[in-house]
């Protein structure tokens, strides 16, 4: 891996981390409301996976999607404005944290029905295939979603019809308070792909280099074969499920244990070992990120509220279809 690429991965992870740390503050300050699901601890997954995508590829994510939106290139300003409920937000204030959308980067949201994004991703891939577009679809979901019928139906459809979907399972071991072993009879998620004849792989989701490499393999496979791929990223959520979660279901020690594998320090030490980074560089990253985050907050603060008379706009399209 090139030093530049490693730096870029680090930069992306730090961006996500600092952006979300700011979100927590803003939630306490009541600037952000509703459900807020933090990605902290899992940054290596979005940062690593999204390297494998090209501009025309499509992304479908969940309600825990700040990281994916940021890594995909959705502007931090517009994401923050969205969480402030402002018109300038990437969903005009209608979506909030769980429903970030961005047409320019083919970021199809932001789906808060667990498993609900998988059929949509399958359909986007079908459209790509039928139109012979050079496009793959990248679909993120948690290990909890694997128990939903939507997982089963989508994996089968994508495999049966040979559709270019990269299914990325973010296995952070918990679905809210439900440990994987209490939601799946077979806890090896990637092994389930065999039931659909889908190629699969599991990767250490705390190691961004490993994720980056695995995603590259996955994307290459999807692009070459035209068929789906399941990549299971084994990761961990450091924070509560959402801001309302008292975390009764896991010992603090378990969280502490995982924090030793925090993807950011992990990458930094490996880069240090190879002489790819020093403190100055880290500071530069931090200050650049801090500026971006501050700028995003300022943008959000300065934003305006959609006039209530526009409430029912976008229930239906203003225009007829072409």
């Amino acid at each position, binding site marked *: 891996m090139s030093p530049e690429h490693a730096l870029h991965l680090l930069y992306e992870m730090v961006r996500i981390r600092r952006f979300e740390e700011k979100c927590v503050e803003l939630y306490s300050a009541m600037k952000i409301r509703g459900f807020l699901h933090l990605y902290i601890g899992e940054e290596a997954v979005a940062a690593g996976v999204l390297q494998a995508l090209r501009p025309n590829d*499509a992304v479908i994510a969940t309600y825990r999607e700040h990281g994916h939106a940021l890594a995909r290139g959705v502007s931090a300003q517009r994401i923050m404005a969205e969480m402030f409920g402002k018109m300038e*937000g*990437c*969903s*005009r*204030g*209608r*979506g909030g944290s769980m*429903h970030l*959308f*961005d*047409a320019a980067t083919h970021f*199809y*949201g*932001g*789906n808060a*029905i667990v498993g*609900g994004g*998988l*059929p*949509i*991703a*399958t*359909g*986007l*891939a*079908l*459209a*790509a295939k*039928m*139109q012979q577009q050079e496009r793959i679809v990248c679909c993120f979901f948690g290990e909890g979603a694997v128990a939903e*019928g*939507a997982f089963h*139906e*989508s994996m*089968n*459809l994508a495999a*049966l019809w040979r559709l270019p979907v990269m299914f990325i399972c973010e296995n952070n071991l918990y679905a809210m308070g439900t440990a994987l072993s209490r939601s799946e009879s077979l806890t090896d998620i990637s092994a389930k792909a065999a039931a659909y004849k889908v190629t699969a792989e599991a990767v250490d989701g705390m190691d961004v280099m490993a994720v980056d490499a695995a995603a590259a393999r996955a994307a290459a496979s999807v692009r070459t074969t035209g068929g789906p791929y399941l990549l299971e990223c084994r990761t961990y959520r450091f924070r509560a499920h959402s801001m309302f979660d008292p975390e009764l279901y896991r010992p603090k020690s378990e969280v502490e244990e995982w924090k030793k594998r925090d993807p950011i320090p992990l990458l930094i030490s490996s880069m240090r070992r190879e002489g790819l980074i020093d403190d100055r560089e880290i500071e530069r990253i931090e200050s650049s990120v801090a500026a971006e985050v501050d700028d995003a907050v300022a943008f959000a603060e300065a934003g305006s509220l959609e006039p209530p008379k526009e409430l*029912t*706009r*976008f*229930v*239906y*399209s*203003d*225009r*007829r*279809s072409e």
Partner: protein
Amino acid sequence: MSRVTYREAVRQGIREALLKDPRVFLMGEDVGAYGGCYAVSKGLLDEFGADRIRDTPLSESGFVGAGIGAALGGMRPIVEIMTVNFSLLALDQIMNTAATYLHMSGGQFNVPVVIRMATGAGRQLAAQHAHSLEGLYAHIPGLKVLTPATLEDARGMLGTALQDPDPVLIFEHCNLYNMEGELVEDAGPVEISHARVAREGKDVTIISYSASLFKALEASNKLASDGMDCEVIDLRTLRPLDSETILGSIRKTHRAVIVDEGWRTGSISAEISARIMENGFYDLDAPVQRVCSEEVPIPYAKHLEDAALPQAEKIIRSVRAMITGKAA
């Protein structure tokens, strides 16, 4: 003009759309090799191939979701669900995704998907194949709900639906597929924003849609011979409802009976009655009445199924009672 069935009219609509727009395709269970569970798509597989007449596995949620995704991705899918009861398996995708996408994304992503399904009772298919849930779907903002009762609409509404940038549901009553009539060969898309006065009259307005329309017309004919002159409205579109045509008719007749194959409580007929209450109250000479399905899962036995459904006889009784002022 040529003589066709409702089934053929729907097929013509699909065929025309496939010929005209390469983005259009049909997907659903057994639309291809089997020819469609109600034989609507028979022959289309041979003409258009398995890519565009796409058989799906039994995965209602999955393939409806895939249809939504394909629409987002630039295609114009026609998704067929065999029977309205099975559509409940896909309702999450329809309500939580298709109907919300545009709004949730602040206007960025519209979903031009058309979802067709067979609805209704009358074929002794019992409690898991015979309901009328189009009224339930009409409750959902973000959707349009069409209920073609005529050959023109069976054929033309599909084209119109495909031109719509947003999700459109089309409910085809299973008892209409064999209905025959004349249809002009180049019948094209039809407008979908207005109800239609299917029979003019001055004494009472009977408001109906889909297969019930024909029971309303049958009742009107019998009532005419008793000197009661009914105006009959075919709603055509349940969402958005064309209140104006309804209210206009009531301003003339001052009386209304609504005929709806949905279960009475919470049916679309309740909505119509409520709108008349709100906007036509002072035009009324008598309270609006409803003739709906009994509140029972549709039973198998013919005589029980018949008893469960709105019938011309019940409509006649309701109209007669209203006009004579005696309880039905």
